[in-house]
């Protein structure tokens, strides 16, 4: 550390330039992390907030579109309720609708059809809980978009009128659309395309999207056995996120970009320290001649890399968090998650150190005898 710190101070412009590159990568990493978390929240927060451990969809349903394609007979709910380890099971309906307020504002909603007295019925931060047949409880993001408690939304083509009676406690979105909880019978009418005032077909009253299952605390449910008994196909809650529109494509794309950024940071650090190592050949030869061990030389070089990377990442993360705070709350799906930021910082640090280590390891091959005579 004796030499490492003094060199950082002496060649500060060179190290500052290198640090600036790493800091910029860190800023990008915070932005990507924020976008990832924001997109995930926008895509599946409605599912994440459900007190559910798994969904039982129709057997053979395509997993990436299970919520839109699955049709399950409501009788499967009773079969699931009887499965060992299941605390509760209840019908769940899901469909996307376009509507319009009385003021003419266009509204898109993800209708979550639930039984009003079931464990899926949401707590509210404003207004009333789910109850009336035409009542809906909406996500606060819908309120942010201009909807108000008491407003009425008319479903396009069907004319069904849904009245906003309450607001959930936290953001509930599905496929980037605000969630509206609705009584199951109303959901079945909308899903079956029954116009307002018309009789809902008997078959439609028996159809749901999936059975929402909650395992007893500390217990696990044998999903395969339940599926066999109920004729369904289960996905755990985490697996069900992939059935949210665009979720897999978005998260995979962002993960790929993050992966590339990690690789770039390792390459940038490696390239910088490779050049630095070449420039220091004579200096290291002198150090070795004076009695510096290989370990001492490596430790000094890696300490230098660690200090530079840690400072640059801290600065970059700080700037990124500042920019993120400005973006958060706007129209961009952006959310800062401490664990994701910490993981990104640690990843950058470790991979940057790997790149630096790969570069400085060549210092061990420097012959101290080159410090002598006409070898310079």
């Amino acid at each position, binding site marked *: 550390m*004796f*030499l490492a710190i*003094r*060199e950082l*101070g*002496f*060649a500060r412009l060179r190290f500052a330039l290198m640090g600036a590159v790493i800091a910029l990568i860190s800023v990008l990493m915070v932005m990507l992390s924020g976008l990832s978390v924001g997109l995930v929240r926008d895509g599946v927060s409605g599912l994440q907030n459900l007190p559910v451990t798994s969904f039982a969809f129709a057997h053979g349903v395509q997993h990436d579109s299970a919520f839109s394609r699955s049709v399950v007979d409501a009788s499967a709910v009773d079969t699931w309720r009887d499965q060992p380890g299941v605390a509760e099971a209840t019908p769940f309906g899901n469909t996307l609708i376009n509507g319009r307020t009385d003021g003419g504002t266009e509204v898109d909603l993800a209708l979550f059809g639930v039984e009003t007295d079931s464990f899926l019925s949401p707590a509210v931060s404003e207004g009333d809980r789910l109850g009336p047949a035409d009542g809906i409880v909406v996500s606060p993001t819908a309120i942010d978009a201009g909807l108000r408690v008491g407003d009425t939304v008319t479903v396009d083509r069907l004319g069904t009128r849904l009245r906003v009676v309450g607001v959930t406690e936290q953001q509930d979105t599905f496929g980037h659309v605000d969630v509206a909880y609705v009584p199951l019978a109303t959901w079945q009418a909308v899903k079956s395309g029954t116009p307002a005032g018309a009789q809902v077909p008997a078959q439609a009253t028996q159809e749901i999207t999936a059975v929402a299952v909650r395992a007893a605390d500390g217990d696990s449910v044998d999903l395969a056995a339940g599926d066999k008994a109920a004729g369904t196909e289960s996905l755990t809650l985490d697996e069900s996120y992939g059935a949210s529109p665009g979720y897999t494509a978005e998260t995979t794309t962002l993960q790929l970009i993050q992966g590339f950024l990690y690789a770039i940071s390792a390459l940038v650090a490696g390239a910088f320290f490779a050049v630095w190592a070449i420039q220091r050949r*004579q*200096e290291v030869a*002198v*150090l*070795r*001649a*004076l*009695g*510096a*061990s*290989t370990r*001492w030389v490596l430790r000094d070089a890696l300490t230098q890399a660690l200090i530079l990377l840690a400072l640059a990442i801290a600065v970059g993360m700080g700037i990124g968090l500042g920019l993120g705070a400005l973006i958060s709350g706007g129209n961009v799906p952006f959310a800062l998650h401490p664990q994701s930021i910490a993981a990104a910082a640690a990843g950058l640090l470790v991979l940057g150190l790997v790149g630096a280590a790969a570069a400085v390891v060549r210092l061990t091959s420097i*012959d*101290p*005898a080159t*410090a*002598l*005579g*006409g*070898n*310079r």
Partner: protein
Amino acid sequence: MSSRTTPSPSAPGTTPADLGLVMRGVHLRHGDGAETVHALDDVDLTVAPGELAAIVGPSGAGKSSLLAVAGGLARPDEGTVTVAGHDMTVSSRRARTELRRRHVGFVFQSGNLLPALTAADQLRLPLRLGGRRDRSGRDPLQMLAHVGLAGKADRRPHQLSGGERQRVGIARALMTEPSVLLVDEPTAALDRARSHDIVQLLAQEARERSVAVVMVTHDHDVLQYCDTIYEMIDGKLATSS
């Protein structure tokens, strides 16, 4: 000092000269077959503590190779090298590094100082190379004053003249109180007056501190300060007339 990595001097029959540098029948070859170059050819050299020995000779004669072998930077193909009774030809590079750190001081051409370090830090550096246990040694500021650089402790190499850089280099080499000082062309970049100053300083330090000094030089002007002069030609060492 660890006996595993730094063999103890052989006590029986030790003479005062053995506490300096002793090279016996040293051969160093580079290359193979017809391409073999005899960098050192049966070299015998003894430099006692307090003695300043100069080695002169044309470029490529093997002078730097001699310094490299004497300081444990290179292993000879044959022969023995001892510094203060310690075998400098041990196979372990780590052991040779530790011997070098403890018993050998190097002075390079133009000082070969580290650009990032002040004069005082250049002197602290050798004390830091061995970890915490090796941090005892001379006081850097006193040492700088001793070589005539009082008040220049905070200057970096580019803020010093050639002669001052070389003085810092000499002071740095003496910080660990070595038994042998190996000096490589110390006057190569200096004018005549400064060259005399530097070699006088080396001779003075050799005597005052009982250090065996081997100085490789092209500069015949400064040989008057040396106790012994050797000439090296094609890897062979002979006492100079």
